[in-house]
């Protein structure tokens, strides 16, 4: 019953955005409240829908809450309709997104208040000059995320996807312009923010155009973008399997890969991941909201929505799923390695996000749909928690650099505890959410790879399992490093240390809530309870009538559980050995530096930025990568071409016209004019001769007349008489 109001879920935050922008721009408090009210209304409505869909149970998959009333535009005889589409995984997302967003909203109310010491030395607490803008943008962002989740058509999905991109750009670049009296940010910060925002938008844009292409080809081939009609079996089979323009690929594979391209862009997978670490320049709630919970998960959600496509493709011999798995796994391990060498507390978390997303994609790639989606939900919670905690640390210490922190656990107990809970969940320590979801994935990978029946993918799945295992270990390692560097050991920067204080209630309350979710939500899909698997797995998906097979918790499951637990604890111990045992002293280089070249590579993030992105250094200046410089050169070249060659041609024509004109003028003056003058003078000449005939003497004329008459007479005579 509530489900036919689902379309209003995104409307509330959107309304909040509009109100803030148009009306309450001046009043910070009021705009904060409007934003929060908006998100609460959305939360209530979405929980309603969530509960209603839970009541529906697994059949929701085949008969989702669906309606597409809005005719967005007609094209030819068909029309493009928008509406809402809620299926089990959608409903779960509907549960996850608003809750996380609400927490972040509450958190950022306090976070955006900066304190600085003015000349007289006493602390001044005052809001960020663009406080209301911040709330406007994040409520717009939330609205778009919700719209994405409930969208019934891939185009609606894409629009939400793109607007989110814009919000991320705006929010990353929130501090990209500095007012006169803004003391809390310095020039470098402004420069970095500016570079990061553009980088984020452009890189995601690249991903978007891949998705756009895939989407349109899908529309072209299947004739519709609506999730319900997209996957009808006959439509998929005969048309999609025809050969696509690219050799060796069927339409289906091509479209799948293109859509996966979108995810790579949005969820910062391997080639297009470079924007996420730099996106940390935005305020921390933004990082939490966008780069932990929602936006990046949108990419994964896209694959989830399109999962039947991938499945059919792999069944018909396409290798799209294989690619997803490989890229996912590789990104997981790749990001984890870089994470080790980062000093910035938020950058470490960023890389961990990238690797966890890699995890999910790997899971989806190997067909573990339920495990992947569960990890997606869990990850959203504990990663948001980690980011907010980190935010609290930064807010109190005033700097991101872990080398300046240390021993903060005494100063900020609640933040410390919540941070530890999040870290343990991330590492996959037992009771916490991360353990269940990560273990599930490793289990599935292990079973499919080593114990399942041989199939063309087994080779890749084995490779995936190995990568995931190593990644798990590395995750534990860098998370432990982070804990020891920030909270344990001796404070390395006295000034920062005594400046640190516990964050206010509005900041640690959300932390607490998230912490509780992180600890207990994992049980939702614990081996024995398996409610989540039942809810999601049983109904299958729109295009896939048969359910996902669910193996009982057999002996292999136990082995993999202990194995993963062991990896996690092993990682933590190694981290303790390096960082915990002899805490790093102030000014002492990072112990990892001893690794030499490997460390340098990791610090420079494999020089990918220099390769095809652009590197934003700390002081705010930007170093343009090869690809960008090449593009710049190309543009200057084309402008030169345009001005010189094409314009040149036009001017040449003009010049040639002038030459021709002058030539013509000369010809005309000389020859034609000449002729005319000649005729004039000749006539003058002849006239001269005749003129003398007029003697002025009357008798002369008479004589001539007479002579004439006489001549006539004679002629007449001769004629008549001869």
């Amino acid at each position, binding site marked *: 019953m509530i489900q036919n109001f689902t379309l209003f879920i995104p409307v509330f935050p959107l309304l909040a955005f509009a109100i803030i922008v148009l009306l309450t721009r001046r009043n910070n408090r009021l705009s904060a409240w409007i934003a929060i009210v908006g998100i609460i209304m959305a939360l209530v409505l979405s929980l309603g829908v969530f509960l209603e869909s839970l009541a529906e149970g697994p059949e929701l998959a085949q008969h989702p809450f669906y309606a597409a009333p809005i005719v967005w535009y007609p094209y030819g005889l068909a029309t493009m309709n928008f509406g809402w589409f809620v299926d089990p995984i959608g409903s779960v997302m509907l549960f996850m997104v608003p809750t996380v967003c609400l927490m972040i909203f509450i958190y950022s109310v306090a976070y955006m208040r900066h304190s600085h010491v003015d000349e007289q030395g006493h602390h001044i607490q005052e809001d960020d000059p663009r406080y209301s803008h911040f709330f406007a943008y994040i409520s717009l962002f939330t609205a778009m995320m919700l719209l994405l989740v409930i969208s019934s058509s891939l185009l609606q999905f894409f629009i939400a996807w793109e607007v989110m991109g814009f919000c991320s750009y705006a929010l990353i670049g929130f501090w990209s312009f500095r007012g006169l009296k803004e003391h809390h940010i310095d020039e470098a910060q402004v420069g970095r923010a500016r570079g990061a925002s553009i980088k984020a938008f452009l890189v995601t844009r690249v991903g978007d155009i891949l998705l756009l292409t895939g989407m349109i080809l899908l529309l072209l081939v299947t004739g519709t973008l609506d999730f319900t009609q997209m996957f009808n079996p006959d439509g998929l089979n005969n048309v999609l399997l025809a050969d696509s323009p690219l050799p060796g690929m069927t339409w289906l594979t091509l479209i799948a890969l293109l859509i996966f391209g979108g995810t790579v862009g949005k969820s910062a997978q391997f080639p297009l991941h470079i924007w996420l670490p730099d996106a940390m320049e935005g305020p921390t709630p933004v990082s939490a909201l966008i780069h932990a919970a929602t936006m990046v998960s949108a990419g994964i959600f896209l694959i989830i929505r399109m999962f039947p496509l991938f499945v059919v493709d792999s069944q018909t011999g396409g290798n799209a799923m294989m690619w997803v798995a490989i890229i996912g796994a590789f990104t997981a391990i790749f990001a984890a390695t870089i994470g080790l060498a980062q000093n910035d507390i938020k950058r470490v978390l960023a890389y961990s996000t990238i690797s966890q997303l890699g995890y999910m994609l790997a899971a989806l790639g190997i067909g573990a749909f339920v495990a992947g989606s569960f990890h997606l939900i869990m990850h959203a919670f504990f990663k948001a928690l980690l980011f907010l905690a980190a935010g609290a640390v930064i807010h109190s210490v005033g700097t991101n650099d872990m080398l300046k922190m240390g021993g903060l656990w005494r100063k900020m107990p609640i933040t410390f505890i919540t941070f530890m809970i999040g870290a343990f969940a991330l590492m996959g320590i037992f009771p916490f959410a991360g353990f269940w979801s990560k273990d599930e994935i490793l289990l599935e990978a292990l079973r499919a790879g080593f114990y399942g029946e041989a199939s063309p993918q087994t080779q890749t799945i084995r490779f995936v399992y190995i990568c995931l295992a190593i990644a798990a270990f590395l995750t534990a390692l860098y998370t432990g490093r982070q804990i020891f560097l920030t909270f344990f050991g001796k404070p390395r920067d006295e000034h920062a240390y005594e400046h640190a204080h516990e964050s206010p209630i509005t900041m640690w309350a959300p932390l607490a809530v998230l912490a509780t979710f992180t600890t207990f939500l994992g049980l939702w899909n614990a081996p024995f309870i398996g409610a989540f698997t039942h809810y999601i797995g049983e109904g299958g998906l729109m295009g896939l009538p048969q359910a996902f097979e669910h193996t009982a918790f057999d002996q292999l499951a136990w082995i993999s559980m202990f194995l993963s637990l062991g990896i996690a604890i092993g990682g933590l111990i190694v981290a303790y050995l390096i960082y915990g045992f002899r805490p790093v002293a102030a000014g002492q280089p990072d112990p990892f530096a001893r690794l030499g070249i490997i460390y340098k590579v990791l610090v420079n993030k494999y020089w990918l930025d220099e390769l095809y992105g652009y590197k934003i250094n700390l002081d705010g200046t930007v170093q343009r990568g090869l690809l960008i410089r090449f593009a710049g050169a190309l543009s200057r070249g084309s402008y030169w071409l345009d001005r010189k060659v094409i314009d040149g041609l036009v001017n040449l024509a003009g010049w040639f016209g002038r030459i021709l004109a002058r030539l013509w003028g000369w010809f005309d003056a000389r020859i034609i004019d000449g002729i005319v003058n000649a005729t004039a003078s000749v006539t003058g000449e002849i006239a001269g001769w005749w003129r003398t005939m007029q003697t002025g003497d009357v*008798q*002369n004329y008479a*004589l001539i007349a*007479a002579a004439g*008459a*006489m001549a006539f*007479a*004679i002629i007449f005579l001769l004629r008549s*008489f001869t």
Partner: protein
Amino acid sequence: MDLIGIISQVVFFLVAALTLAAAFATVLLRNVFHAGLALVGTFFGVAAIYLMLEAEFLAIVQVLIYIGAIAVLILFAIMLTRSLMKNEDSGMNKQWAWAAIAISTLFLGMFIVILQVPWLLNTSVIGTDIVPFLGTELLTTYLLPFEIVSVLLLATLIGAFIIARE
């Protein structure tokens, strides 16, 4: 040829010779006044010829008009245009030789024509006085020319008067 015929021919030749001589005199005399008088002589000659052609009225009119009026007019003109007592001679102009040649050939041509053309002669004796008939004819068949000529004379009268006015 009877006596009268001969006599008339002799008279004709006489008169013709006199007239031509007077004409030549008019043309050749250097003194314009003498030329004028020679002209009067010619007019008399012509009047005589008219008489020979039995056109008495015309002869008398010729005398009355030509000699009485036109000759006087010419003499008057001569008098007016001669700066007194300066008798500049007005002989021939430059092209008289050419004129002479051209005119003589013209005369020759005409003469040949006159001789060659078979004139249809229709001599009939005029008995009675023809003037009344002339009068009636003048005012009947030739009424229009008669009126036009009168207008012409009027115009001339006015024109001459205006031009010659001081």
